[in-house]
């Protein structure tokens, strides 16, 4: 509120003496009260009292509407200083497609964003509000949305709390700004530090170290600490070790995830030591991991774990420590310890007789592969799960084994190949649809050819349809859209639901074909 004078902006009729008197007379009624004097209004023809009052009220009303007084002294917004190039905006064709995607085909948004980014373009400015709203709803597409929204989008996001996720994100071309780092909003500070981290990681860490003790809010400490992920190196380990003693659990957790990415450091070596102390091979060749001690303070600190509950050891506490230890210890410790390759380690883990510890151990190894982004281990764990990829394997006690995330660690050609080799043995069409969906794309031509064959296969009108629908849904997203030419206009079979899925697939592929032409 900097000097704005807007008496009652919503009400054009700021009360004046005559008007107030007219209102009170109208409330009481002209049967009981005389029409008041209104010296500041022109004379009215008169007539009965009520009519006279209404005449004068109408005069006042119209006069105030026509004589509206605007606000003065408003301060305009600080405009977007960005000099982003408008020629880099997506064209009208691509923008129309985006509107339709947001309205009807949200599943295609990631592909649209990917293609826009691949051309070095950003979204048209008028689309930014819709796009930022999408990001507010779906956090997994946020990074791509922020990139497509560009500097204009980031500027815009500062005005709407729903879009705050987009304010702290760095964009290419950002420079470190002393002002932002010194007295900016949390988002601006984070951005400034990230920009510096990209250019001079050591200097950025020194700045952070200097202000660290004064950062009262745990959430801010976590956000700034996580900027170290950019340009992370052995020089950061000392600072991270310190953060492992932070009073806030979220900060300790972040420090641990960053330390996990430094397998050559002292922390990693200590974790290897814990594994060596607790894991061994039994006589029958199965892998045995003893419960790590809850009272072992050094281990708790290294794994950023809380003090166990005083009522001694619960099964949960044991599971939690095992899970944390396996997840964060560099996976190279296992082959070294057991003298075998990753597949051998997984085989030893599956040889454990008891179902529960077995599935728990396997799930922890799978999680380690995901956290440490290790394709070789992903391959080994997937190999032990049986033929073909699946995203739904779960075990009751240890939680779901997220095989989808393991699959994503493999190159796409390898995923397609896995599926292609697994398919002949699969009888159930539901399982087939699931396989295709889990593979994700873009599919190789060989896998597309197999999908096309299944899509055109004759089917009985009353055959179960779920598997076919799943196959259509997967093909719509992962097949190259040019393959639509291999699908006849009309489904080569009857049966409403399957024909509907088939039509929808052709429709989506043709939509994507348009998109590929536009972008």
């Amino acid at each position, binding site marked *: 509120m900097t000097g704005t004078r807007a008496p009652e902006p919503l009400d054009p009729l700021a009360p004046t003496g005559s008007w107030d008197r007219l209102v009170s007379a109208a409330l009481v009624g002209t049967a009981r009260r005389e029409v008041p004097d209104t010296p500041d209004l022109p004379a009215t023809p008169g007539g009965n009292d009520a009519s006279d009052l209404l005449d004068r009220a109408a005069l006042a009303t119209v006069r105030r509407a026509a004589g509206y007084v605007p606000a003065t002294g408003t301060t305009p917004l600080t405009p977007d200083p960005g000099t982003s190039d408008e020629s880099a905006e997506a064209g009208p064709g691509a923008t129309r497609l985006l509107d339709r995607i947001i309205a009807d085909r949200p599943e295609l948004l990631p592909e649209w964003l990917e293609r826009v980014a691949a051309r070095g373009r950003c979204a048209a400015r008028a689309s930014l509000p819709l796009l930022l709203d999408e990001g507010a709803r779906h956090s997994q597409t946020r990074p791509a949305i922020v990139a497509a929204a560009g500097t204009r989008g980031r500027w*815009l996001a500062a005005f709407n709390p729903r879009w705050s996720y987009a304010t702290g994100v760095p964009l290419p071309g950002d420079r470190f700004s002393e002002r932002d780092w010194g007295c900016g909003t949390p988002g601006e500070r984070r951005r400034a530090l990230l920009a510096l981290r990209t250019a001079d990681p050591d200097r950025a860490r020194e700045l952070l170290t200097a202000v660290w003790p004064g950062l009262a809010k745990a959430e801010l400490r976590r956000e700034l600490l996580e900027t170290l992920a950019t340009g992370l190196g052995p020089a950061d380990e000392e600072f991270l070790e310190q953060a492992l003693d932070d009073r806030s659990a979220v900060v300790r957790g972040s420090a641990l995830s960053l330390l996990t990415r430094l397998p050559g450091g002292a922390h990693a070596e200590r974790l290897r030591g814990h594994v060596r102390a607790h894991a061994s091979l039994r006589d029958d060749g199965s892998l045995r991991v003893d419960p790590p001690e809850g009272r072992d303070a050094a281990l708790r600190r290294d794994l950023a774990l809380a003090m166990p509950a005083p009522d001694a050891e619960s099964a949960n506490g044991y599971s939690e420590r095992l899970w944390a230890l396996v997840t964060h210890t560099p996976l190279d410790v296992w082959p070294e310890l057991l003298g075998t390759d990753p597949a051998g380690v997984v085989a030893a883990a599956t040889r454990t007789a008891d179902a529960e510890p077995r599935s728990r151990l396997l799930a922890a190894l799978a999680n380690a592969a995901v956290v440490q982004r290790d394709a070789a281990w992903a391959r080994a764990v997937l190999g032990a799960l049986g033929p073909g990829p699946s995203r739904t394997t779960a075990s009751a006690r240890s939680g779901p084994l997220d095989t989808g995330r393991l699959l994503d660690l493999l190159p796409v050609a390898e995923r397609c190949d896995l599926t292609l080799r697994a398919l002949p043995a699969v009888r159930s069409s539901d399982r087939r649809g699931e396989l295709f969906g889990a593979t994700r794309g873009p599919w190789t031509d060989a896998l597309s050819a197999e999908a096309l064959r299944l899509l055109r296969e004759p089917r009985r009108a009353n055959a179960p349809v779920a598997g076919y629908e799943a196959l259509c849904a997967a093909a719509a997203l992962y097949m190259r859209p040019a393959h639509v030419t291999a699908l006849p206009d009309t489904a080569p079979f009857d049966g409403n639901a399957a024909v509907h899925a088939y039509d929808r697939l052709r429709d989506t592929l043709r939509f994507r074909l348009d998109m590929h032409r536009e972008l």
Partner: protein
Amino acid sequence: MAKAGSWPERGAVAAPAGGTSAVWGECKGSGSKPYLAAVHLDGDGGTAYKCSCPSRKIPCKHVLGLLALWAQEEVDLREERPEWVATWLSGRVARRNRASTRRPVDPARAAATLREREEAVAAGMEELRLWLNDQIDAGLAEVPKYGYDHWDRMAKRLVDAKAGGASALVAGLPAVARGDRWPERLLERLSLLHLLACGHRAGEALDPRVRGAVRARVGIASKAEEVLEQGERVRDTWRVLGWRDTAAPEAGMLARRLWLRGRDTGRTALSLTFARSGQAPATAFRSGTEVTAEFAFYPDGHRAVPVHDGDTAPAGPPGGGTVAEALDSFAAAAAEDPWLDTWPVVLDRAAPAREDRWYLADPDGTALPLTAGDPWRLLAVTGGHPATVAAEWSPAEGLTPITVWDRNGKAVSL
């Protein structure tokens, strides 16, 4: 499908005025019976298709194939036609006639009908005037306790009197009679209704434009044909300022208000179109263009219909002005239509400002408040830099931006 060989029997039906009225054909399918396809080209409700195949697509591939064949001049005019074609076409013609059957126009009778209607409206409006006086005599203090029937009786009476516009204004009163500052807002509405009733009673004594505005607000609709026949004609190059869709008074309908401004006359024209909600009302005008054409104006002097299609050309931003100039133009229009609550204004070098709410401000900080809601698209397009903005101004609701012209002069609808 579009091969002559697939259509052993086919033909075109001549239209009485020359050209082709319909195309039909019998397509050899895989089954024993041929598919019977036909297209009625000059039907009243647009082109119509028929085919005996089970496809749910309209037009189906058979119809499309037939049309393709016809376009290649492979379907000749034929005098004789199969019975199924004759039945279908005559059924369509009969339906059209039923729909458009009008009583023969008897000028004396028509004049009498018109007079009866005018008298009914006059009686209704007079009753409204007396009813308003009664409300003020009795006092408004008890109004929030009234049930809806208190207002509905008067609103219904006005519907019966064929004064639909006035009726809608009365029906909107209970919503005003509660909440913050209701006595003032209610007195405003009542006094404007009173002004409308008095205006209607004044009749021919009023300036023709004011009278046009009165009659439009009361709900005495002018037919587009009458406007084209008798309305004021203005020829100009009309710049499209922008449009806004709002719910129409009729339930389930959407109205599009599209504003144009004449380049030479400076005249403001309003094009109103309607559609069922869920569909976009169709207009002949596109944003970022201007059309050189003759418009016929309704009696209120603002609403207009184009007399012919005209020539459309791309156009840059319209000339805009300051906030003060915008308010002046509203005041001038309100002098002819005191009930005016929506008026198009164009501001140049307008920049968004955010204080207790959003504003659009002149370079010197003079500003109009925006209606509720956030101007995100405007901000996204301008980045907060000054720009030419067309908006609807309502003193009660605030400013609603409808079009912004970006740095390259491209129009973006908001």
